[in-house]
């Protein structure tokens, strides 16, 4: 303000009237009263949004981890099917094919399913208690590949076909592709939900900010009168919104982290039920890695920051209107 003012001395001389300074006369009130901002509703909105975002992110991380695990499991083995052909001894064909596979480089282990085991694989479709002796049930041989080895599938196919012409080799490529597509779709859907949650958060915060500014318009006008700039005024409001955003982010993110922390136990309660088994098949053990928890914590802080930024943007736009 007026720099020269300080050199002019006191404005009035009170002489003997100079009062004792009351102990209570101090700046204690915030310039923008906290109660004038609809804080609880905004904290609840940000907490719910953060919780939803964290659950989405956590689920995406779980699905991705499970899908990667399945892919590595499935990609590390091949399945050979030997079909029964009239005039050929199936057991001899299976033994021959097993030996031929073992001779291939890059094969770690080969296991031929017995007739009973192969029959058991058909139980889900044919039911139990059925005699499979008269049915032409193909035999399955599973070969595990040495980790990191590249198998020459064409050479393997050619060599085992010489032993038994009725064999077929499945390296699960189609299955892996479907898994990859499914996992990609889950990530894509997760990102979509996250974007929607963030947009909804921004809209909610903008409305809350406009409401707070409307409720505090007289304060803004007085601050303008005493020479406060928009940045000064916005910062007074921003402190409130940043704190509300952090509170909401902490509650929502904390609840989601707790939910994932206890998810293994919760999954245990449902194990053995059809629903529990389906979820276990899809999401594995439900346990999030430490890096996953870190991502959730960073995400909660990010949502608090988005709250503050959205609020700041609305604040400056509203201040322009008020002036």
């Amino acid at each position, binding site marked *: 303000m*007026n720099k020269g003012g300080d050199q002019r001395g006191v404005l009035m001389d009170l002489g003997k009237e100079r009062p004792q300074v009351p102990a209570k006369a101090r700046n204690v009130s915030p310039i923008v009263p906290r109660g004038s901002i609809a804080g609880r509703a905004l904290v609840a909105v940000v907490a719910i949004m953060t919780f939803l975002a964290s659950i989405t992110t956590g689920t995406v991380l779980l699905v991705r981890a499970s899908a990667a695990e399945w892919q590595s499991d499935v990609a590390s083995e091949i399945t050979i099917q030997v079909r029964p052909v009239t005039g050929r001894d199936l057991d001899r064909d299976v033994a021959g094919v097993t030996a031929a596979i073992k001779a291939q480089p890059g094969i770690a282990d080969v296991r031929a399913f017995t007739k009973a085991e192969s029959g058991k694989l058909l139980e889900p479709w044919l039911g139990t208690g059925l005699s499979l002796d008269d049915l032409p049930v193909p035999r399955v041989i599973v070969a595990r590949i040495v980790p990191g080895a590249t198998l020459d599938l064409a050479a393997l196919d050619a060599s085992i076909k010489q032993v038994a012409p009725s064999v077929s080799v499945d390296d699960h490529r189609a299955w892996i592709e479907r898994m990859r597509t499914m996992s990609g779709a889950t990530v894509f859907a997760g990102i979509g939900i996250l974007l929607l949650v963030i947009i909804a958060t921004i809209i909610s915060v903008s409305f809350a900010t406009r409401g707070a500014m409307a409720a505090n318009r007289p304060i803004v006008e007085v601050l303008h009168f*005493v020479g406060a700039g928009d940045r000064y005024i916005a910062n007074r409001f921003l402190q409130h919104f940043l704190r509300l955003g952090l509170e909401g982010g902490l509650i929502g993110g904390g609840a989601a982290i707790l939910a994932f922390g206890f998810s293994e136990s919760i999954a245990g309660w449902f194990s053995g039920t059809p629903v529990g088994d389906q979820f276990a098949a899809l999401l594995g053990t439900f346990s999030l890695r430490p890096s996953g928890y870190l991502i959730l914590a960073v995400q909660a802080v990010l949502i608090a920051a988005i709250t503050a930024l959205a609020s700041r943007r609305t604040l400056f736009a509203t201040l322009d209107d008020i002036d």
Partner: protein
Amino acid sequence: MVRFENVGLRYGLGPEILRDLSFQIPAHSFQFLTGPSGAGKTSLLRLLFLSLRPTRGLVKLFGNDVSLLGKDEVGELRKRIGIVLQDFRLLDHMTTYENVALPFRVMGRAESTYRREVIDLLKWVGLGERMDALPPILSGGEKQRAAIARAVIARPSLLLADEPTGNVDPTLGRRLLRLFIELNKSGTAVIIATHDITLMDQYEARRLVLHQGRLHIYE
């Protein structure tokens, strides 16, 4: 300090309520702004406070053409102007002390550097016992004095006061006028908009009379 040249003002598409105003407010000067109700006194004060822009003409404030000022520059200039409005505009959640100290707080000054000054001024305007009271429990006259104290506390270069003695008794009115005179002597240019002939008769000063949107100056 302030220069108006052929300034006109209209609200929207309405008639021109201020017409061809040309005058200067020199630094350290003291003047009363008077005229009948609806003559445009408050509008002229708002032009001087930069909360309105003229429809036409040139307004220069502290050497700046106001039509060229950005928002930040307006804020900086307002720090050099104190204003007392008819409706006081005190913040209800702050004590009288805090309201009066607000300009210093906005400036970012440490409270220890201005606390004594704020308390002295509150005592001077008769609010020494009401420092911790909130505006809703103050009387009209007390609110007016608090608003005046807030406007003058930072010793602005230009003080604008709209009916500053309208709600106080004659004795206190004289005391407040003395405060404005003291402030003027310490270097502030003062413009007091008033209907109060008695108040104007108490101090020999330039009179700016608004009538039907035009300004007549009596030195």
